[in-house]
């Protein structure tokens, strides 16, 4: 897939300026670069294009963005999964005891895994991950990465500045710098 002429400006500052990139139809692509270089903006622009072309895109945002008034299971079921599917996903992520707990009762790492479970429950054609393993311990990182690779959609786009995360989740890495964003 070819994405051409991506532009984005915030307060007179160009984050994306006539940016173009080729992305494979399948596999996991990581955009690797320092914080603030415009990786997330790129991810949003690509995701918007994908949505316009009819892709169903699941997101793991940089923040967990869980509904504070719903339990972990309800947050996952929001993405369309049945209760059984939800509980199976939570079990795979080591959250079987957290299903009925609300976000304020969970640790940062547990919330992160609930957000990952929600994205995996959505299914879809593409998975967009913004620093998905941030705040997880080594075991949880390995377990979550393995699950994403195993049951995630065929196309996976990832941004991170963590080499370990990039290595665990991607087939190919695109090194970027900015702003405005440029391929190194």
């Amino acid at each position: 897939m070819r994405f051409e002429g991506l532009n984005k400006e915030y307060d007179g500052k160009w984050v994306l300026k006539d940016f173009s990139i080729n992305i494979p139809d399948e596999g996991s692509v990581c955009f690797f670069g320092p914080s603030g270089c415009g990786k997330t903006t790129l991810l949003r622009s690509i995701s918007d294009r994908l949505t316009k072309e009819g892709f169903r895109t699941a997101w793991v945002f940089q923040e967990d963005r869980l509904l504070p008034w719903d339990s972990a299971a309800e947050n996952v079921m929001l993405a369309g999964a049945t209760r059984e599917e939800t509980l199976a996903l939570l079990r795979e992520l080591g959250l079987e005891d957290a299903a009925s707990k609300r976000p304020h009762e969970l640790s940062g790492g547990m919330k992160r895994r609930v957000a990952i479970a929600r994205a995996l429950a959505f299914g879809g054609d593409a998975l967009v991950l913004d620093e998905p393993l941030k705040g997880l311990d080594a075991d949880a990182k390995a377990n979550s990465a393995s699950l994403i690779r195993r049951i995630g959609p065929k196309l996976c786009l990832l941004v991170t500045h963590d080499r370990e995360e990039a290595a665990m989740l991607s087939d190919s890495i695109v090194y970027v710098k900015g702003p405005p964003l440029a391929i190194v």
Partner: protein
Amino acid sequence: MTPTTTPNKRKQGYTVFESKQKGGLPKWASTALCALFWLSLWQLLAISVGKEVILPAPLTTLNRVVSLAATGDFWLKCGMSLLRIGIGFLLAAVAGGIIAVFTAFVPVLKALFSPAMSVVKATPVASFIVLALVWMKSGSIPTFTAFLMVLPIIWFNTHAGLLSANGDLLEMARAYKLSPATIFKKVYLPSALPYYTAACGTGAGLAWKAGIAAEVLGRTALSMGGEIYDSKIYLETVDLFAWTAVLIIFSVVFEKLILVWLRRMNRRFAGGLSDAV
């Protein structure tokens, strides 16, 4: 006795503080002592004035309340006042909430309703009552007045609550293709509930005061306000104090009942996390 403040629970990342009196009197005892202080002051003032027609003593007032409560007429008047004011409040709570939903999502409706609500909010209650005396029967005036007093409060607060919905959660909801109805139920409604409950709490007290004022000015038959008017006409100060005491009790009970109902709504739609009441 050193009052201390200790964090007792965490909700949505905020620490909720609860006052606790360390090594002091239990709360009920300190409340009783405060009440005793003010009743004693009232008694002393009544003794020093020495005229029941100007300031009746607390015990005299209590006796009058008890004798009034023994009659069926008393309960009929209380019930009718409660019904009139309650209907006005409920209509405002429903209409204010519905209008807020429309104005929050349709800018042209916001432009249309905003000045009208501001005018209603700024107009003195007496003006509405006098106007209502011209327009309608005296039995409807308390309902109309309570409705008009509560409506802008509910609208302003609920509108603000809906607009305060978390942008990140809304983006998440759209990314996951949630239906507009689900987005409303899961994001907007829990965001607006603390504002709505706070407005209902304020509105309940206001509805009661405005409704009784309307009954007094409208000389509504079978009403608590009507009794207050009569006690003023016949200089029955003990009755005036007794009915006022009853009014305060009913106002408190009315507000508490509404808060209980709102807590139930809060638990149902926001898991108890939007607990503003």
